[in-house]
C-alpha cells in the first residue's frame, strides 16, 4: 500500500469512527426518536443535517465533473437541485409539518382517508429511495475501489456494512447528528482543494470571485482548439432538454420523501421555514463551489496535461486508466496528447483533480473522506425512509395496528438491513452513471408525489380517487418515458433525465380531472386541508377560525 492510500484510508477510518460513535451515543429508544428525532432539532442544525442528507455522491463526486464536461448545459443540475428548496419551503414543508405525521405515505393515507393511497405511496417511496441509494452505493464503490486498488464491487460491500450498522442502531436521531458531522467534513473537503487551485492558478484564495476570468479563458482556449466554447449554451443538448431537466430536478427535490421527512423533525411551521432557509445556505456553499471546481479542473487539464508527449504521462493517470473511468488514445497519431484523446468519466473529476494539481496526499485523502461522507450520509437518510415506509406505513398502519413500539422498531431495523443488502447487490453492477441514476429518482419522485402533495395541501376538494389516479399515472408515465427515451424514442428532444416533465403533467391533470368527476371528500377532511393555511395557534373548524391563546392542555 503506498503512502497516498495509507493517508486516505486513515482519514476515512477516523471519520467512520466518529459517525459510529455519534450514532451509538444518540441511540434511539422509542419510535418517535427513531423516525423523527422526537421533533426536537433546532433549525440551524436541522438545516445542516438536511445539507448532509441532501448532498450525495451525485453532488460531491458527480456534479463538478458533469459541469466540466458539459459546460453551460451542466448548470441545470446546479439550479435544479437548489431551486427545489423554494418549492419545498414555500409550498409543502410548513404545511406538512402542521399536519404532523411521521412519513409521506402517512400524510397521503390520512389526508385522503384511504389505505389504498397509503399503500401506493409507501411502495413508491421505497422504489424512489431504492433507486437513489443504488447511486450512493456505486459512488462509495468508486472511491474505495480507487483507494485500495480493489474492484469497485468490493468497495460497495465495505460501504454496505458500515451504512447498515449505523443507520439501524441510531435511527433518525443518530442519523441527524451524524449528518451534521458529515456535512462539516464534506464541505471542508470540497472547499480546501478549490482554494489551493485558485491560489495556484490565479494567486487569489477566493475561488468564487476568481474563476470567472478562468471561464472566459477556457472559452478562448476552446475557440483555438476549434471546439464549441465552454460557456456556450445548449451545445450538448436542446434548450427543451435543459429546461425539462431543470424542471425535473426542481420538482423532484421538493417531492423526495427522504428530504420531506427532515421537515418533520422540527418543532413548528416557523421552524420549518427557517430550516429550509438554513439548509439551502449550507447546500449553496457546495453548489457555488462546484462550477469553480469544474473551471479550475478543466483549466489545469487544458494547460498542464494537454499538449504533453503521450508516452510521458504523469503518474496520476495510470490508476484511473486501470479503473476504466479514464481512456487515453492517440487519435491524432502524433505522440502528443490532445483534448480529443482524453475520454474522462465525469465521476472521476473531483477525485482526480487534486492529484493532477499535486495538492499533496493530505488533500487527496480529505477528498476521499468527504466523498464517503456524502455517500454515507445520504444513504443513511434513505434507509431510514425505506424502513419507515415499510415498518410504519405498511406493517404498523396497514397490517398490525396493535404492534408494540419494540416490534415496530425491530421491523424498521430488519427493513434497513434487507434494503441495504438488496441495493448493494444492484450496485455491484450499476445500470448507469451516478448522476443519471439519481436523475431517474428525481423524475420518479416528482412524477409520483409532487402534484399529489401540492394539491393535497392547497386544494381541499381533492379526494382519494384523484390521489390514486395521479400517483399511478405519474409513476407510469415517468417510468414509461425513461424506457422509451433510453431506446431512442423522444418527444421535443427531451431525454430520459427530463422524464419528470411528462410524469408531473400527467399526474396533475389526472388528480384534477378524477377528483372533479368523483364525489368530494368528507367535510372533516376538507376542514383539515383548510387548517393548513394557518399557523399552529389558529385552528379551522366548521367554517370558522379559532385562536388558541392558552395552550394548557
Amino acid at each position, binding site marked *: 500500500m503506498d503512502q497516498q492510500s495509507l493517508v486516505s484510508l486513515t482519514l476515512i477510518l477516523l471519520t467512520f469512527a466518529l459517525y459510529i460513535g455519534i450514532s451509538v451515543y444518540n441511540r434511539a429508544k422509542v419510535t*418517535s426518536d427513531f423516525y423523527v428525532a422526537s*421533533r426536537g432539532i433546532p433549525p440551524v442544525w436541522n438545516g445542516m443535517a438536511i445539507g448532509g442528507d441532501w448532498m450525495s455522491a451525485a453532488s460531491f463526486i458527480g456534479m463538478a465533473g458533469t459541469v466540466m464536461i458539459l459546460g*453551460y448545459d451542466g*448548470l*441545470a443540475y*446546479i*439550479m435544479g437541485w*437548489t*431551486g427545489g*428548496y*423554494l418549492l419545498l*419551503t*414555500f*409550498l409543502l414543508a410548513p404545511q406538512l409539518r402542521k399536519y*404532523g*405525521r411521521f412519513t409521506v405515505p402517512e400524510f397521503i393515507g390520512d389526508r385522503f382517508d384511504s389505505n389504498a393511497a397509503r399503500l401506493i405511496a409507501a411502495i413508491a417511496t421505497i422504489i424512489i429511495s431504492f433507486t437513489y441509494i443504488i447511486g450512493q452505493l456505486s459512488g462509495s464503490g468508486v472511491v474505495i475501489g480507487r483507494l485500495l486498488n480493489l474492484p469497485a464491487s468490493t468497495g460497495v460491500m465495505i460501504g454496505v456494512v458500515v451504512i447498515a450498522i449505523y443507520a439501524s442502531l441510531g435511527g433518525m436521531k443518530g442519523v441527524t447528528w451524524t449528518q451534521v458531522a458529515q456535512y462539516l467534513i464534506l464541505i471542508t473537503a470540497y472547499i480546501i482543494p478549490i482554494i489551493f487551485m485558485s491560489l495556484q492558478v490565479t494567486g487569489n484564495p477566493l475561488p*468564487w470571485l476568481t*474563476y*470567472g*476570468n478562468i*471561464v*472566459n479563458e477556457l*472559452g478562448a482556449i476552446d475557440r483555438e482548439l476549434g471546439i464549441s466554447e465552454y*460557456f*456556450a*449554451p*445548449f451545445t450538448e443538448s436542446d*434548450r427543451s432538454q435543459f*429546461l425539462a431537466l*431543470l*424542471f425535473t430536478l*426542481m420538482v423532484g427535490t421538493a417531492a423526495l420523501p427522504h428530504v420531506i421527512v427532515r421537515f418533520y423533525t422540527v*418543532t*413548528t*411551521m*416557523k421552524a420549518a*421555514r*427557517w430550516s*429550509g*432557509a438554513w439548509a*439551502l*445556505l449550507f447546500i*449553496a456553499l457546495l*453548489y*457555488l463551489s462546484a*462550477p469553480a471546481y469544474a473551471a479550475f479542473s478543466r483549466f489545469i487539464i487544458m494547460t498542464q496535461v494537454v499538449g504533453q508527449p503521450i508516452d510521458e504521462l504523469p503518474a496520476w493517470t495510470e490508476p484511473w486508466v486501470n479503473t476504466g473511468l479514464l481512456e487515453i488514445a492517440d487519435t491524432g497519431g502524433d505522440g502528443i496528447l490532445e483534448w480529443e484523446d482524453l475520454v474522462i468519466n465525469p465521476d472521476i473529476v473531483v477525485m482526480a483533480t487534486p492529484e493532477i494539481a499535486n495538492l499533496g496526499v493530505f488533500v487527496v485523502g480529505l477528498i476521499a473522506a468527504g466523498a464517503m461522507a456524502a455517500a454515507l450520509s445520504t444513504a443513511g437518510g434513505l434507509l431510514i425512509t425505506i424502513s419507515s415506509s415499510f415498518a410504519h406505513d405498511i406493517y404498523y398502519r396497514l397490517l398490525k395496528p396493535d404492534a408494540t413500539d419494540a416490534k415496530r422498531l425491530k421491523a424498521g431495523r430488519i427493513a434497513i438491513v434487507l434494503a441495504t443488502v438488496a441495493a448493494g447487490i444492484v450496485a455491484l453492477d450499476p445500470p448507469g452513471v451516478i448522476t443519471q441514476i439519481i436523475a431517474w429518482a428525481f423524475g420518479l419522485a416528482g412524477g409520483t408525489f409532487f402534484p399529489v402533495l401540492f394539491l393535497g395541501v392547497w386544494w381541499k376538494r381533492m379526494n382519494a380517487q384523484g390521489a390514486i389516479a395521479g400517483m399511478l399515472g405519474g409513476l407510469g408515465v415517468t417510468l414509461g418515458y425513461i424506457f422509451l427515451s433510453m431506446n431512442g424514442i423522444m418527444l421535443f428532444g427531451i431525454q430520459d433525465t427530463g422524464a419528470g416533465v411528462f410524469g408531473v403533467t400527467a399526474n396533475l391533470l389526472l388528480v384534477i380531472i378524477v377528483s372533479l368527476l368523483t364525489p368530494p371528500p368528507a367535510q372533516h377532511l376538507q376542514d383539515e386541508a383548510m387548517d393548513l*393555511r*394557518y*399557523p*399552529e*395557534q*389558529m385552528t379551522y373548524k366548521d367554517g*370558522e*377560525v*379559532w*385562536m388558541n*391563546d*392558552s*395552550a394548557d*392542555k
Partner: protein
Amino acid sequence: MRKVEKATADKYFRIRTIMVIIFLAIGFAVSFGVAFFAESIYEGGALILGMPAHYYMGAQGAVITFVVLLFLNAMISDRVDKAFGIDEKQNEQISGGASDH
C-alpha cells in the same frame, strides 16, 4: 380559544399567498427565465465577475437569489405572524401535543 374574525383569517392567508407567488415568480425568472433566453444573452456578450452573464446566472446568480428569497420569506413570515398575534411558544406547545398520535 377565541374566535378569529373571518376577515382577519382571510387576510392572513392572503398575505402569505401573495408572498409565495411573488417569491416563486422571482425564483422562476432567474432560473427558467434566464435559461430560456440564454442564447440571446450569450450573443449579447455581457460579463458578470469576468464570465458571460448567462453562465454567471446559472453558476451563482440563481443560487444566491434562492438563498436570499428563503431568508426573506422566513423573516417576513415571522413579522406577519407577530402582527397577527401569533406566539411561537404556544405554537410549540400545540404542535408538540397534537402531532404524536
